[in-house]
């Protein structure tokens, strides 16, 4: 299996991925992705799990908000709104990640990332 792996590695020669990984443009992409995705993920998971935690351990969401519609329903609907808003924000932001990625492929891999074989 190891030899199979090595053989594939030789075929894959041509791009020095470690060099690409260490390039400042790739590092910047990774930093920006992390800075964007991590807080967003933590936010929606917390927002989501607060609902069952509050309904299981407290009753204050049962107070009426509008007529017979209580806060628990408002919170439930806000989960839908949150999903749509966050996914729209992500798509907007991801367009800039796409541009960065294309630039990395162009400058780091297609031009100078290749070893002379």
């Amino acid at each position, binding site marked *: *299996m190891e030899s*199979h*792996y090595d053989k*594939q590695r030789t075929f*894959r020669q*041509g*791009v020095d*991925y*470690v060099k*690409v*990984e260490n390039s400042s443009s*790739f590092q910047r*992409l*990774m930093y920006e*992705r992390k800075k964007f*995705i991590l807080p*967003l*993920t933590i936010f*929606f*998971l917390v927002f*989501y*799990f607060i*609902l*069952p*935690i509050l*309904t*299981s*351990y407290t009753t204050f*969401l*049962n107070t009426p908000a*509008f*007529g*017979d*519609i*209580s806060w*628990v*329903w408002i919170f*439930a*609907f806000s*989960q*839908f709104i*949150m*999903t*749509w808003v*966050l*996914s*729209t924000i*992500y*798509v907007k932001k*991801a367009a800039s990640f*796409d541009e960065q*990625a*294309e630039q*990395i*492929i162009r400058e780091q*891999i297609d031009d100078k990332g290749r070893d002379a074989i």
Partner: protein
Amino acid sequence: MDATVVILFLSIVLLTLVITYFAAKRTQTTGDFYTAGGGLTGWQNGLAIAGDYLSAASFLGIAGAIALHGFDGFFYSIGFLIAYLVVLLLVAEPLRNLGKYTLADMINARFDAKKIRGVAALSTITIVLFYMIAQLVGAGALIQLLFGIDYWIAVLIVGIMMTIYVLFGGMIATSWVQITKAVLLMAGMVIISFLVLLKFNFNISTMFTEVKSATGHGADFLKPGLKYTDPLGTISLMIALVLGTSGLPHILMRFFTVKDAKTARSSVITATWTIGVFYILTLFLGFGAAAFVGERNILAANPGGNMAAPLLAEVIGGDILFAFISAVAFATILAVVAGLVLSGASAFAHDLYGQILKRGEATDKQQMLAARYAALSVSVFSILLALFAQTLNVAFLVSLAFCIAASANLPVILYTVYWKRFNTTGAITAMLCGLASALILVSISPSVFSPNEGEALFVGNPLFPLDNPALISVPLGFLGGYIGTILSKEHDATRYAEVKVKANTGYRDS
């Protein structure tokens, strides 16, 4: 069975067969068979994801759960939708960038080990079987109710249809059956919701006020806690719902049917809007059924509440709407089981046969033949299981499939893409720990053992208190992967650099 039902039922069957006929002519290569050649557009794939995801359990089960249990039924709708944020932000794009046909392909982008491929195929097949039996048992019961035919005939009809789509039309036919079904289903939901709102003069507040006095539960109907009284049980279920989707093989497979990560992303957006609107509408169906059909009639038709939506259609739209909704429910089942057969077949034929047995050296013709045999075997095997599993609780099987997906598949996906130190041993222990803990904990749970006869499979005291073990088994999956990784010295930073660059830029060298 009246004439309208039969005509609508047959037109849906005919439509899907026409789709399959044209798809079969376009299915030339293995790539066409597994992933429609990667040629679906964003919105097509988005609708197909919705068609793959919105099962009969979602359509009939959640409407029934809301009609019977009020707010607690709506928990499912929320969890099933927010799951797509996990898919969108963490899973879809790296998966598209690294994988080819299956989950195992994606993990193998980092580790060339047959053991890993084998374990990934095992977890895929396990999830597919549980999910498939749930769908087939549900389908059998439903068609039996709708058309008054025997359970075994109903299972056979659905089983033969799904086999035909997959066997001849592969992913192209499956995708278009799913797209058609998604459109029909959304149309049905919108029509019923419109009629329900019409009855309440388009005033949502009036609807809440009316429903408050319409059921035997009174004001409690609008409050959480009617069904889920155990806090840890509720949270555990919510974990399985939100994390399970990104590990379901038939959903993961849908990200290989588009050409790049950007299209994968736009398809998740289409899916998120479609699925989100669908789950909002489940509320109108559930409330409508509670108000206009009534708890007694819903329970009389089916103890699980599965007939709430069709009965509501009959009450507010007459026989024609009832026939249409029944036909849509049938199309819903077909689309989901076809997707499941295909993902099960890919694990058998691509991972086990093509990559492990043939070491990736099978010709395209051999691979295609293997894929078709595998599809046929998966179909026959699951039809046989479903014939003997008539009495199993469908909701329990579905939540179990989500739990295994969250415990066995999600940790390994996240570690593969995001953790530098992760290695072969870790990948294997993550999948095995998640899979084993989910299966073992369920087998000693109240779903399997109950002190009262008839409530579960066996009589006895459950050793584990939660119906859905995700609260324990998901952390165990992550922990298993962590411990396995640090216990082994093996570590390949160069390979991770490659995976990281490819996952984040979409660059492909072959």
